[in-house]
Every structure is written in C-alpha cells, then in structure tokens.
C-alpha cells in the first residue's frame, strides 16, 4: 500500500516528566484497545445477548403480565403446549407459505434486474437509486398503501382483474382466504426487497473477472446461458448470503401481515388467522393475551426453526450451484 497521506500528525509530545509520560504511554498501549471495544460489548451484552438468553428462562416459567403472582417454574409445560397448539401450527404454515411465495420470486427477479444493471448504462447511479425506492419506504407505510390496492371494493388489484374478465360481479376479498392473502402479503414483501437484493447481486457480478466470460464464449455460450452457467455460479456465495438473509427476515415477518389486517392492533392475522405469522402470534400471545412465558417459548421455537431452515437453505443453494465444497 502506498502512503499517500504523508503529512505527519501534529506532534503531541508535551514537556511532561518523561517517567509519567512513559507510564501513560504503556498504559495506553495495553488498555486502550479494550476501552475502545468495551462500549460495544457492554451495550450488546445488556440489550442484545442477555434478552435472548433470559428469554430461555422466561420460557421455562409461568410469566403473566396480568397475574404477576402466578409465577414459578413451569418446566417444559410451555413447550409441550406448543406441540398441540393449533394456532401455532397454523401460524407456522402461514409463515412458510408467505415465505416461499416471497423469497423465490424475489431472488429470481433480483437476479434478472441485477443482470440488466450489469451493463454499460447511461445514468448508472440513477437506476441504482431508483430500485432502492421500496427499500427506504417504511414497510408500515407501503403496507397501508397495498391495503388499498388489495381492497375488496374498488381496489386497484380487483379492477385490474376485472379488465381481464375476473370477478366482476363477485369481487375477490383478498384478506378472506389463505391463498389470496398470502399472495397479497408476498407481493408487498417482494416489492420491498427485490431492488435491495438486486444490488447485492450486482455488486458480486461486478467482481467476476472478465476473462471468465472470454473463456466461455469460445465454447459458444449465448447471453442467457452466460447468466445461468457463468454468472450465477460465480456469485454463488452472495446467492447463499441472500438466501440466508431472506430466511432470517422472512420467517420473522411481522409488519406486512400486521398492517394488512383490517384491524391492525388486534394482531389476529385476518378474521380466522388465515395470514397470522409466528412473529404476529408471539405479539398476540405476549401482549394481547398477556402470557409472556408462552410467548418466550414460541420465540425459542422460532429461533430453532430459523437456524434449521437457514442452514438447510444454505446447504441446498450450495448443492444446486454445483456443490463445490
């Protein structure tokens, strides 16, 4: 590395007594690094790590907000209750359904858009900033807009459907069924995250060495094959990264199903829980039913599920991409 900044920093050597100065200097060399990292680890330990561990203890106890006297160890009762709780399994199914409907199109479309952006373009920055509009828009705000879009009466989605001849006399109630509410919610999630993922892919694409393409062209690969046989395998680490990111985010989905509800603060995910996700159920159990112990157990279950699914997805993506390693 060449040293471009040659101006030396202003000397701070003051006429201290040399002995004291040397002590301070030694102390600084030894201790200062720890002082610099201490705030991070302190805050993180208190507000990040501790809650997650303490969550495990709460899950093993009776802990109700409305009845503080009724506490004490519950053993695994909260976890046993989970196994037979139809609400939990319903929410789990919804979460996975919405997750699949949002992740797969999201990443595929992001790949296509990244491929478009990976050209010599006029106004490079303009396009890149443009695809980030949904990313900066608060999910709460955009979901409220999409609620109007997917309204049963006079909604734009139904109007578009009617243009192609669907549901003119019987407009579709998007919130009423599992499949339709899942599609609506997945649409919102896709809208928000496609551009962001496209930029992640674009960044990886730009670091592919150019001669890789030259070598492949001799074998006669066209642009389409180029994308799938060269570009995608070359950016595989980032693809795995985005798959893991969307798994972590998607399985904790909260904002969109929450505000898509016609009565958001109820957290019920539709009249019959048809689009209630686990994160929503945790909120409902904890702060509507006031059963924190049970909500904590659900959080742990969700944590485990995320770990497993993220791991499996990473493995699967690795395999699909040719499975080096």
């Amino acid at each position, binding site marked *: 590395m060449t*040293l471009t*900044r040659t101006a030396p*920093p202003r000397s*701070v050597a003051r006429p201290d007594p040399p002995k004291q100065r040397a002590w301070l200097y030694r102390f*600084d*060399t030894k201790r*200062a*690094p720890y002082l610099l*990292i201490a705030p*991070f*680890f302190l805050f*993180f330990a*208190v*507000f*990040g790590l*501790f*809650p997650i561990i*303490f*969550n495990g203890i*709460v899950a093993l106890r009776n*802990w109700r907000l409305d009845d503080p006297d009724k506490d004490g160890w519950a053993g695994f009762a909260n976890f046993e209750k989970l196994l037979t709780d139809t609400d939990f399994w319903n929410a789990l199914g919804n979460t996975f359904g919405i997750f699949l409907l949002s992740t797969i199109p999201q990443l595929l479309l992001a790949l296509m858009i990244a491929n*478009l952006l990976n*050209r010599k373009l*006029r106004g490079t*920055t303009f396009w890149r*900033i443009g695809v*980030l*509009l*949904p*990313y*900066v*828009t*608060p*999910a*709460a*705000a*955009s979901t409220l*807009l999409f609620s*109007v879009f997917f309204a049963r*009466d*006079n909604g734009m989605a139904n109007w578009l459907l009617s243009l192609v001849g669907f549901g003119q006399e019987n407009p579709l109630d998007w919130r009423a069924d599992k499949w339709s509410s899942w599609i609506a919610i997945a649409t919102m999630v896709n809208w928000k995250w496609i551009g962001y993922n496209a*930029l*992640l*892919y*674009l*960044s990886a694409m*730009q670091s592919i060495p*150019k001669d890789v*393409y*030259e070598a*492949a*062209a001799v074998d006669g*690969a066209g642009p389409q094959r180029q994308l799938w046989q060269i570009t995608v395998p070359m950016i595989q680490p980032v693809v795995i990264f985005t798959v893991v990111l969307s798994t972590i985010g998607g399985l904790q989905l*909260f904002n969109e199903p929450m*505000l898509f509800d016609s009565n958001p603060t109820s957290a019920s995910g539709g009249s019959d829980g048809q689009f209630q996700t686990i994160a929503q159920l*945790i909120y409902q159990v*904890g*702060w509507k039913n006031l059963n924190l112990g049970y909500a904590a157990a659900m*959080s*742990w279950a969700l944590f485990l599920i995320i770990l497993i699914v993220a791991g499996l997805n990473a493995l699967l993506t690795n395999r699909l991409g040719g499975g080096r390693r």
Partner: protein
Amino acid sequence: MTSTTHAAPRRKRSLAEISRAPSESRGTWKTYLLLTIVLLVSAFPIYWMFVIASSTEEAVSKVPPSVIPGAQLLANLREVFTLQNVYFTASLINSFIVASVVTASVLFFCSLAGFAFAKLRFKGRNALMVVVILTLTVPNQLGVVALYILMGKLGWNGTLLAVIAPGLVTAFGVFYMRQFIMHAVPDELVESARMDGALTLRVYWSIVLPAIRPALAVLGLLTFVATWNDFQWPLITLNGTEFPTSMVALSDLASGNYVIYRRVLAGAFAATVPLLVLLLIGGRQIVRGIMEGALK
C-alpha cells in the same frame, strides 16, 4: 425508432461480441425499457400514496382508480396532525430523536471498536472479532419478550429510552467499520503517530476519523433508515402511550372501526417523505453501502 441491429440474425454475433463480459457490453433499448418498467413499479406505490393523500374520500373509491393527485394534501395532513389520541406530530419528532441518537451512537461506538479491531494489537482480538461476526447473524427480534421484561425492571417501557437503548450499537457497524478502516487507514500512519507519542484516542480523532468520513456517511444513512422504519419493538413498548414513533402512530391511524384512507395515507406519506429526502441526498452512499456489504 429505426433499428437495423434488430433485423440482424442472431447468429451473426461476432465472437468478440459474445466473449465480452456483460458489464462490458452496452445496454440496448430493451435493457432501458425493462429498467424503466422496474423503476415505474418501484415508484408507483409511493406516487399513489401521494395521490390518495391529496384526494377527497370519494376520489379514493372511484373506479377506475384515480391516478392524478388531488388538491387536498394540506387539508388531509392538517387533519392527521391535529388528530386526538394519535399524537402524529409528536411521533414524527420522536422518530427523529430516536433515529438521530441511534445513528450518532452507532457511528461513534462502532467506529471506535472497528478501529481497535482493524489497527490495534491486543490479546484476544481475533477471538473477540469472531464473537462480533457470530452475533451478526443473531436475530435479536427473538429476544423481545425478555427485552420487555428488562425494560420493565429499568422502568423504561413506554419511553423513547426503551427504543433507543437496543439500537445503540450493531455488530454490522463494527464489522463494516473494521473492513473500511483496514483499507482506508495505512498502518504506517498509525505507527508513526504512535512513535510521536500520540495516544490511541488522539490517533482515532486526528487520523482515523478524517479518513473514514465516507464510511460514516454510508453507515449513518443505513442506520437512520433502518431505525426510522423499525416497527415491532416500538409497537410493543410504546403502544398506547403519548410517545409513539411515527410507525406506531401509523398503526393507530389505521386501526379502529372506520378507517379513512385519505387520512391514513396522508400519514403514511408524511412518514415516508423524510426517507425519500435522504435517498435523494445520500442515494449514492446508500447504494454503495449495500453493494459493499455484499462483498464482505
């Protein structure tokens, strides 16, 4: 548009043309057309938010839907801002306070730690860095129940402190700063300053900070946007109080038996505008931050 290349048979692509990496080839009219569609789809919901926010209630339920802004924006906004029990005006201020404090704190503490990890030698450095990297993947949303109990013990539930405290530092911030400082600050510079007797904080202040301004801008923007948009935890701790953030206030606005869309979306639009302004000013940095994050 007359296009002669259009008629050319596909086969005739020269070898030189195919062998070019995609990033070396010029975008065709098709590329621009598709990108324009992407851009329209990205922008339309925000535009439509503005349309409804500026319309009368009748215009909202028109079929086909109206896509031309009305003249009621100020009237609708005034209604939202003066609404009882939603505290919308206060909520915008609260969001500003929370996002600014969190951003300043993340920038300061994460750059300090990032500097230590990148340039200083100390025992346990590598092990501690591994801890930081591991914590990157822990979704701390999963600790909300215990966090709520903790905040209850501290007496902070229902106050902005409860929202600010968990955001004060991020593992991503430390990681990002470390990567940047490793490359942006030459070792020789740090060492020669140390030779001159500069203490660590002095080095941070006069050498590291000036060199990492671009990274501070990037991390600051990403942090501000994420904090502003945070919904779940603020909802849990602030709901029903007089100090909501704007996202919590929005959910109040959209609840109830009778939802007035022009009002809800006027609120949604008001809560989105600050971020659109940020994107306008710092879009370049936000793009850079996301793209650099991918390579790590």
